């Protein structure tokens, strides 16, 4: 049995009109211990909801989620989550934000050790000089660095990343992606990671496996694509390498099929899929 096992999960939300809208339907996946898996899909396809179910933030309507053989009920102590919108507490400094996580994860440690741990992880993301600044005094990229430091500071076994770089500009995104890859490999122990993204390149850079997600409503997962490239991966390797091109081609092929299917569905009255994915992919294909 795989480390994270999701079997036939479905989730509906009640809309403001009172009608039930099925966001996820019959989603199954498995993630091995230490694996980095990306769930790739268009905006609004329900992939964030799926991540929240995996993380134990939202209960599924039906189906089963297990981690290390245990059924998920609530957030696991060994799991860290990084959200797209940073989710830092604005009244605390960067250091206090990280310390809050450390003291909750390691309540038995002496205060000095908790502080040390927080400072060390802020340094590891290059924020050694900004520990006393509040989130409001930091740029978006720096805020997400704090959030990443906070996630790694609790020494997690599982990392859930919900479009962690989605709100950042392209340059900041590139450098943070590389940094995340470095932090994962530097951790010195296997970290199982599930990342939600709408960028094929991001998925290619970081993942062992890519799971394309069909457009919602009633979203489900397509056939996984393995990315059999050594890590760390360099930008040029991804840009010019034959293997990368082949994987990219397969992922894009699956997603294009998916977009075509969604377009057909739109003609028959279903809601339109977001076009962001197509836009994000285009320049990188040239």
């Amino acid at each position, binding site marked *: 049995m795989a480390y994270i096992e999701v079997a036939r999960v479905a989730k509906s939300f009640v809309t403001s009109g009172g009608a039930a809208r099925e966001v996820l339907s019959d989603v199954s996946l498995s993630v091995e211990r230490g694996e980095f898996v990306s769930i790739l899909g268009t905006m609004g396809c329900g992939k964030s909801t799926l991540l929240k179910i995996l993380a134990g933030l939202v209960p599924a309507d039906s189906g089963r989620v297990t981690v290390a053989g245990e059924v998920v009920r609530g957030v696991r102590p060994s799991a860290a989550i990084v959200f797209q919108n940073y989710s830092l507490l604005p*009244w605390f400094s960067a250091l206090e934000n990280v310390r809050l996580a450390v003291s909750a994860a390691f309540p038995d440690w002496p205060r000095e050790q908790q502080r040390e741990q927080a400072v060390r992880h802020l340094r590891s993301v290059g924020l050694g000089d900004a520990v006393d600044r509040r989130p409001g005094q930091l740029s978006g990229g720096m805020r997400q660095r704090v959030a990443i430091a906070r996630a790694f500071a609790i020494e997690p076994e599982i990392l859930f990343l919900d479009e962690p770089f989605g709100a950042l500009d392209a340059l900041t995104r590139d450098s943070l992606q590389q940094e995340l890859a470095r932090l994962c490999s530097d951790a010195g122990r296997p970290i199982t990671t599930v990342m939600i993204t709408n960028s094929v390149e991001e998925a290619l850079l970081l993942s062992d496996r890519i799971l394309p997600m069909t457009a919602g409503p009633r979203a489900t997962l397509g056939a996984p694509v393995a990315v059999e490239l050594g890590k760390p991966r360099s930008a040029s390797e991804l840009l010019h390498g034959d293997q990368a091109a082949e994987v990219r081609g397969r992922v894009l092929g699956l997603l294009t099929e998916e977009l075509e299917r969604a377009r057909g569905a739109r003609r028959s009255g279903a809601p339109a899929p977001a076009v962001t994915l197509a836009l994000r992919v285009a320049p990188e294909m040239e």
Partner: protein
Amino acid sequence: MKRVADFLLPAVGVVLALIVWWATSTVVPDLPSPMKTWEESKIYILKPLEKRGEMDQGIALLAYYSLMRVARGFLLGIAIGTPLGFLLGMSKTLTRVFDPIMQVIRPISPLAWLPLGLVIFQKSEPAALFAIAVCSMWPTVINTMAGVRAIPQDYWNVARVLRLSRFTTFAKVVVPATLPYMFTGFRLSLGIAWLVIVASEMLTGTPGVGGFLWQEYNSLIYAHILLAILTIGVVGFVLDRLMGLAEARLRAI
């Protein structure tokens, strides 16, 4: 030029108000003119800390007594109102239990509470505090409640993801997130407390600006009524500004 206007325009307003006052005093025989009010009141203003009798004291002393009474009633009010606001904000069930009672209690005038306070406590001082607390706590209750409800889902998620204990969640997430709302409540509550003080001092005859006002009315010294009214206005204005400054500092975080 802008500085001159900043000073000049409010001055024009003051002068106009004085003219209206003076004009009214020429028509209403018992209303003292601005000049007469100053003549009869200047001893209270020029010797603000002099104590000549129980009610016959400098205006600063009278204002001080009233402020102390307001402070006690206000602190009592927010000491009850703040926790109540948090409870109602965090529990929909409690809100449904208490909402009808609150809606009925809220519009009751201080003049109605005071006799009840006298019946319960038998003394004027605790009755006055009771009336101030009961009337002034509602903005604090309601704003604190609204503040808790307005906490973004993100912050609740942080608490859940970090697996914070209930106490830590309250102390490190709920209270800081609610603080600006709470302070808006405090500011409004203090305004109401200051309104209530005059009514309660008038009814109980205790020394303070309101008590002084009522006594001077009974002694037919109408100029002192105007003195008391102006004092009440100025003190209320200063209180509101001070709370406003504290609030602005909190919001800047």
